């Protein structure tokens, strides 16, 4: 009951969010000095009033703002986000095309980040204040502090150019054709198509950008796991477990870790959100055809239908991730369900 109610409330918020986000971009789009009409016609056509008019009519730019907004929301409800001024394609189609690439990378890097982050965090907490703890803390802080665009550059220089042990930018090697699009996640599509070598190739291409993108989240998770585990280890029920005669390993595995994971889940959620933000930079460096590059181009060109589309998508994503995190909370922490 509580859970359903909670989920329903989040979904209502989601609707408000979509309206709010689109409204914000709409207001920005109409308060900027630049004119998207002029920005998107060729040098010649700008002098042709007929062309300008037909362009404006096509995008509804000749109507007042609130009318445009209502038109937009009306279409949005029908699943139509309008047409990108820049790519001249429906925004929805663009998003469908670019988003899977981003999601594939994000999922991969979150897996890396969670695995190493938790591993490092646990080691660090167990060996608190030892040399290895200091080293891990150092690494995690560097992970949080390193500029991703720079790290990507360094990784490519080192592993791709100089050592030749990693593949270059892009989702797959240039000489390979992408797999038949089913999910648009290349690794999965390649496996579905039974093309093992293509799947491996796609995985290899995920490695460097995944590491770069995941470094921040990994640092965050390491840090949180460490402090959360330390905190839990100082709680009374750990003393109870010790008094029962459990070994330290049993205490950590059975009693501490489960409790320590709870705040880590939040951080994973935050990290996932951050990934989508950090995408812009990493995708630029690794020529990754994802939503980040799309958003970057859209923003630079004041392609407002696309900007609204991306913003809504990422906002929804944020809410959905938060919802998942909250639901996970309920699974990890039995107290939540009843409060």
């Amino acid at each position, binding site marked *: 009951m509580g859970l359903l109610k909670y989920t329903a409330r989040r979904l209502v918020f989601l609707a408000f969010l979509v309206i709010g986000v689109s409204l914000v971009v709409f207001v920005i789009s109409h308060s900027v000095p630049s004119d998207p009409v002029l920005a998107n016609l060729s040098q010649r056509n700008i002098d042709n009033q007929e062309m300008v008019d037909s362009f404006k009519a096509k995008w509804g730019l000749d109507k007042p703002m609130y009318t445009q907004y209502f038109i937009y929301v009306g279409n949005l409800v029908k699943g139509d986000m309008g047409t990108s001024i820049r790519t001249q394609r429906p925004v929805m189609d663009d998003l469908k095309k670019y988003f899977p690439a981003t999601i594939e990378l994000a999922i991969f890097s979150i897996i890396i980040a969670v695995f190493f982050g938790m591993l490092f965090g646990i080691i660090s907490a167990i060996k608190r204040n030892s040399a290895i703890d200091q080293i891990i803390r150092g690494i995690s802080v560097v992970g949080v502090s390193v500029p991703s665009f720079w790290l990507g550059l360094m990784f490519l220089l080192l592993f791709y150019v100089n050592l*030749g042990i990693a*593949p*270059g930018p892009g989702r797959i*090697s240039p*000489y390979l054709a992408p797999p038949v699009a089913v999910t648009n996640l290349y690794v999965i599509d390649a496996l579905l198509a039974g093309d093992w070598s293509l799947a*491996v190739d796609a995985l*290899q291409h995920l490695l460097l950008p995944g590491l770069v993108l995941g470094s921040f989240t990994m640092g965050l998770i390491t840090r949180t796991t460490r402090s959360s585990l330390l905190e839990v280890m100082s709680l009374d029920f750990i003393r109870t477990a010790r008094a029962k005669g459990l070994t330290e390993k049993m205490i950590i595995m059975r009693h501490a870790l489960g409790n320590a994971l709870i705040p880590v889940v939040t951080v994973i959620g935050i990290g996932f959100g951050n990934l989508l933000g950090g995408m812009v930079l990493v995708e630029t460096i690794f*020529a990754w*055809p994802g939503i980040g590059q799309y958003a970057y181009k859209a923003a630079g060109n*004041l392609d407002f239908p696309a900007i609204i589309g991306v913003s809504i998508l990422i906002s929804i994503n944020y809410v959905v991730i938060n919802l998942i995190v909250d639901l996970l909370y309920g699974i990890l922490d039995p107290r939540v369900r009843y409060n």
Partner: protein
Amino acid sequence: MRKNYGILLALLTVVLLFAAGCGGSKDAGTKPEAADGTKQLIMALDPDYETFDPGLAYEVYALLVLHPVYDTLMQFEDNLDAPIYGIAESHELSKDGLSYTFKLRKGIKFAGGNALTSQDVKWSAERSMNLKGNGAFLADGIKSIETPDSDTVVFNLKGQDASFLTKLTYNAFGVIDSKVAMENEATNAVDANTADKAKLWFDTHSAGSGPYVIESYTPKVEVVLARNKNYWGKAPYYDKVVLKAISDPGTQLMMLEKGDIDIAFNLGPEHVKQIQDKPGIEIKKAQSMTLTFLLMNRDPKIGGPIANPDVQKAIRLVLDYQGMQTIAGEGSITPVAPFQVGFLGTLPPRDPKTAQNIEKAKELMKKAGYEKGFKTTLEVATLAVEGMDLPTLAQKIQNDLLQIGIETEIKTSDIMVALDPYRKGTQALSLWYWGPDYPDPNTQLAFLPGNPVGLRANWTADMNPELAELGKKAAVEVDKATRVKNLEEIQKMMDEDSAFDVLLQHARHYATRDNIQGTDYIDLYKIDLKDVSAK
């Protein structure tokens, strides 16, 4: 439960990493042949195309893709002076210079199997006109199109046009299989700009008669062209051409070095230097038709002190063209006026060593009453022109202008945003680039006072009536000798008085693996893909 998930996750990650790490070390470095023996060309470029609808596409790289897909009546081979026949066999120009009659080659079939007729030529051109896309202006001069028979097509013009044959080389006149197109909701009707729904189809399919067809298009990733089995001409060497979208020149360079790609097309002059001595790589250089110029507004309300013609002349004299050519890279030159070297009638470029005259510039500043200098804004779009970063050049200009006391603040913005004030003519001082709309000097007349680009500097015809008048004459002149004379005169006048200072005509730098050939630069197409082959 939880524990099991953890172990599963760990195992999965380890396996993934292992697979990735091992495979990586084995595969990187060489481009393996496709298993089935198909020959494949891979070119990396920083594309600007957004659509492959021949009626709408107007981007710089659109013709790279569309030229080998859609045949045109006229085309260029290597020399931009004179177009040669494409699918036209011959043509006649009426005495009044207003009517072109073309005979089509016989027996040409579209990739889909339909025969190509004069109807298709007419339909395609009309569709372009009515779609009112960015390239539609090329057809502005056309009054009507007639098709007396299936292999004859007649273009009736509104007025004489010396560059009409050149204009026909554009994709706007690319011949589409009208039957296939109409099946996919295309139309050539007057209301095509709203009624035509074929754009999305054209993005990922093609209906042309060229040597290649569009096999697939993944925006921001790649375009794959496949051999057209019905092609009427000599079959191209490669079965497949893959155009990889890789925006970063450094990345292109890396991939070329690794052998992952055959052509790295967007290299800056500096990248080229890096790989000069690397084995397996061939460096290509060519004169590009792209200009970089400084716009100086003539309207005192906008330009302030900049609007003063003496100040503008002083700026032309104080700039260090030699330094700029260093930045733009080897092969770049500085034309006297906005007419590219390589076009009919263009004067020899400036000698960068002697072009700079700071003393005289200072005198002119004094004469204009700005001996102490002034402050202004230098607007520039953030992009690279032929591998040269425009903001970098802006910093060089900023530095040079300080010598006559002009302090500039650089204002950068994205190209699409910067275009707005540029077109409205509200920029005082700005750095811009220009590529010809079609390979004919007439396209450059836009820079003259009263003409579209001239007006962006608020340089109206009454400010230099003589020059404006000469420009009007040059536009319609068809006699070659008179054209040359007129054009030369215009350039000389613009050297004396102009709202523009042409800084650079760029060189195009790119590189290929040294085992391929036929990759010479043609400004219109960049590279004619059908001509590329292995050595």
